[in-house]
């Protein structure tokens, strides 16, 4: 664990740094491929639950009851063979009857309890109108749109529009991936799943906002120095928050995993599973997107600003000069460990607003651009 802490420190100091922002093309293409696959899956169609198709589901909890017995009873009652009978993980028998049967649930339950010798109380029933799923989805979609608009406005005001756009792209990205996984794996989409999808909204943005906050802090007054470009500052911020991002994601995933594997496992498929499965996929996608999609995209948008372009030029010029000086120094035999200095620069850049030296008595690293 301490080694992990150490990594956290080295990431923070910039000794170890993953170039997330620089490799944006890699992430973009990776995301593009995933999203494409997800879209393909979507084109194949989602497996919609009974809430979307309409019909009724009866669940019977009776030890020793076999699928064929239940099927026989259902067929007798319905006078056809249309009922779908399955056993669930927990050993219960699930009978699914399509909406076309037009048989009142009460009648069906009464008949079932007679035929299978179970009390009506032991039969759980759900009857759904065919448009209920549509109704829920419509509302979910409405919620999605309202939320996106509001959050975009909020981010644009609290931060800036570029962040809002980047966050929004990351959000859509997460949703697409999650829905795509559902389509590809063939998980059933239920209202519970829709809840899960909607929660991803908040979560995905939560992650992104945490990262953006540091990036913003890091890039404060960036135009007043010439040591690093915006992308580099953003990447440094990303690396500093990497451990935090990983931790928050892990901690967020743990309860969801408990819900998914333990809660769901105890009951078999159900609302618990539906919500947590969507959340689990969405959270993982959200962590990835906040690091590999949102921030690089934000940096890219930012680099388009004229002042950032100027900065990039200044940095390049300074680096060229430094390299030249370095080369000269090396030629004259002076060996100054350039690396340590670099680390210091990063650090002071981060400290930014601090107006009192905390610890270092070395004066070299104080950037002139500090205020």
């Amino acid at each position, binding site marked *: *664990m301490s080694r992990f*802490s150490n990594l*956290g*420190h080295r990431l*923070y*100091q910039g000794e170890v740094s993953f170039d997330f922002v620089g490799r944006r093309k890699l992430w973009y293409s990776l995301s593009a491929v995933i999203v494409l696959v997800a879209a393909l899956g979507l084109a194949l169609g989602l497996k919609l639950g009974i809430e979307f198709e309409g019909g009724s589901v009866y669940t019977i*909890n009776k030890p020793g009851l076999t699928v064929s017995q239940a099927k026989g009873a259902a067929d007798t009652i319905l006078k056809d063979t249309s009922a779908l009978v399955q056993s669930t993980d927990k050993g219960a028998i699930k009978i699914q009857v399509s909406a076309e049967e037009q048989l*009142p*649930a009460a009648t069906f339950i*009464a008949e079932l309890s007679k035929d299978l010798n179970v009390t009506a*109380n*032991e039969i*759980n*029933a*759900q*009857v759904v*109108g065919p448009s*209920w799923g549509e*109704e*829920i989805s419509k*509302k979910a979609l*409405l*919620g999605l749109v*309202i939320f996106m608009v509001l959050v975009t406005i*909020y981010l644009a005001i*609290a931060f800036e529009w570029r962040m809002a756009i980047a966050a929004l792209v990351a959000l859509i990205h997460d949703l697409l991936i999650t829905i795509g996984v559902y389509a590809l794996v063939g998980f059933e989409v239920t*209202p519970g799943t829709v*809840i899960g999808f*909607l*929660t991803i909204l*908040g979560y995905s*943005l*939560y992650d992104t*906002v945490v990262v953006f906050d*540091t990036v913003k802090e890091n890039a404060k007054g960036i135009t007043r120095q010439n040591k690093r470009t915006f992308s580099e500052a953003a990447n440094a911020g990303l690396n*500093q928050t990497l451990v*935090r991002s990983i*931790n*928050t994601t892990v*901690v*967020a*995933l*743990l*309860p*969801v*995993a*408990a*819900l998914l594997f333990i809660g*769901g496992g*105890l*009951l078999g498929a*159900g*609302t*618990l599973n539906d919500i947590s499965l969507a959340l689990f996929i969405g959270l993982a996608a959200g962590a990835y997107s906040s690091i590999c999609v949102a921030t690089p995209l934000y940096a890219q948008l930012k680099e388009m600003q004229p002042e950032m372009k100027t900065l990039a030029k200044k940095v390049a010029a300074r680096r060229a000069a430094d390299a030249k000086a370095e080369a000269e120094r090396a030629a004259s035999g002076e060996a100054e460990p350039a690396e340590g200095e670099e680390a210091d620069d990063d650090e002071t850049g981060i*400290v930014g607003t601090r107006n*009192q030296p*905390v*610890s*270092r*008595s070395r004066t070299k690293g104080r950037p002139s651009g500090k205020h």
Partner: protein
Amino acid sequence: MASPKSRPRDGYPGRALAFILVITVGLVALMFGTGHKTPRLGIDLAGGTSITLTAKSDNPSAINKTNMDTAVNILTKRVNAFGVSEAEVQTQGSNTIIVNIPNKDGDNEQAIKDIGQTAKLYFRPVLALAPTGALPTAPTASPSAGATPSASPSAGSSAAPVPPSSSPSATKAGRAVTDGLKADPTASPSAAATPSTAPSAPSAADMSAALTQGTVPPELQADFAKLDCSVQAQRLDYQTDPAKNTVACSFDADQKVWYKFALGPVAVEGKDIDKAIASFDTQQGAGWQVQLKFDDTGSKAFAATTGQLATQASPANQFAIVLDGKVVSHPYVSQSITGGNAVISGSFTQTEAKALANVLSFGALPLTFEMSDVTTVSPQLGGDQLKAGLVAGGIGMILVVLYSLVYYRGLGLVSIAGLVVSAALTYAIMSLLGAGIGFALNLPAVCGAIVAIGITADSFIVYFERIRDEVREGAPLRPAVQRAWPRARRTILVSDFVSFLCAAVLYLVSVGKVQGFAFTLGLTTALDVVVIFLFTKPLITLLARTKFFADGHKWSGLDPKRLGARPPVRGRRRTSASAAKEV
């Protein structure tokens, strides 16, 4: 900054801690004091039946708050009519009504069936009627009372207040026909005066046959004879096919007697009523009446049927207004009523007239409900789901606690304490809300609460990591704790705001399960802010004063060495830090 002088910068953590402890203890005490020790459980956890009804209408403006409230009132009456106590009927969102029926005696089927029948309002011609059940002995004495089946809501009549010009608009067929009937609506209710029927009301013995007025069509005879409206179980909606004859029940409130009816096919549908209002007839002093206005289709059908009915002899000259299979009124018709306007007059009280107008309006909206989702959960499954949710929540909590302890060591204890406070607050508030606003904890809400464990822990992490960043910078713990706070605070507020926004939007636009989930999520997000401001931050401030944390004990989670500061640097930092202290 690191000097002892900076002490006020720590704020007064003790006060904040005392404050939140008082709040927590107060809420928990209130919870026990009021006796609401557990959250109210939703149907999916407690067992029972939950019915979701969605309003459907071709006219979107018809789905408005007033109409929804009327619907809730009617549904509540219906559910309660079947003796299901503790059933709750509430609107959710703009067009949804949720009916929750707890699993009491396991016999909710009738209630479900009854609720499922959305308010169907029909006008059907009366073919025959008869009192049923045990008649009070009195009726024999008062033949006049026999008139009452029709007497109360006696006559229907009308006139068309057709717009003066009654412009040559042939488009409105109803109106075109009415030209001849321009009479003042109130002038013509001549018919109102004639409650003609007078059943001879013989002895109570076998009145079913003896008291029957009119002719029961052959195919209904068996049903009609069998029907005993005084038996609740038989008071069903027999209107399976609008095009066929049927039977129905009606209660005469004046006589306290149930009547049964043989009715003809549906002549006019309730949805063809434009509006119905109760008004007081000032001109004739006839008292309260209900004015009806039909739409084009309704006008035509009404005109045709009234024309025909007027020629019939009693009781076949009556129009039964049937709501959900029950005759609510059966006024006479003495003449063809064209023009789409009609008045039902009789000895109404104001309340009666308004109630009838409500019923008519309700059917007329046309606001129909579709049973979107009916879920019946056995108490056993409900209990299982609750258990699964609790187990999952417990294990999730333990996992988070373990992770915090392993990764944050001493600080992990702080996050555990924070989670405990948060959980206590959430539980107490949920329990109190159950009593206060009827909040019911359902399965998605449990999920929301479990997911919230992650959100709460995330806030701690954001703050801890910032403190650790400061320590990495070489700051001693106390200033580090203070310096980390403003930035951690902003991050937490911003991200919590986003979460809360999400929950709020979800809550406002969604229904049912989604709403329960959103509510919990919003509540816990708000509590997260409270806990981090009033509990975590002050607690850490206090702990930073202890030697264990301030010196970066290796189990404190703030050991500078473990955080990776390289020894030489650290040594120097230490010196400078202590030097700073001496300033």
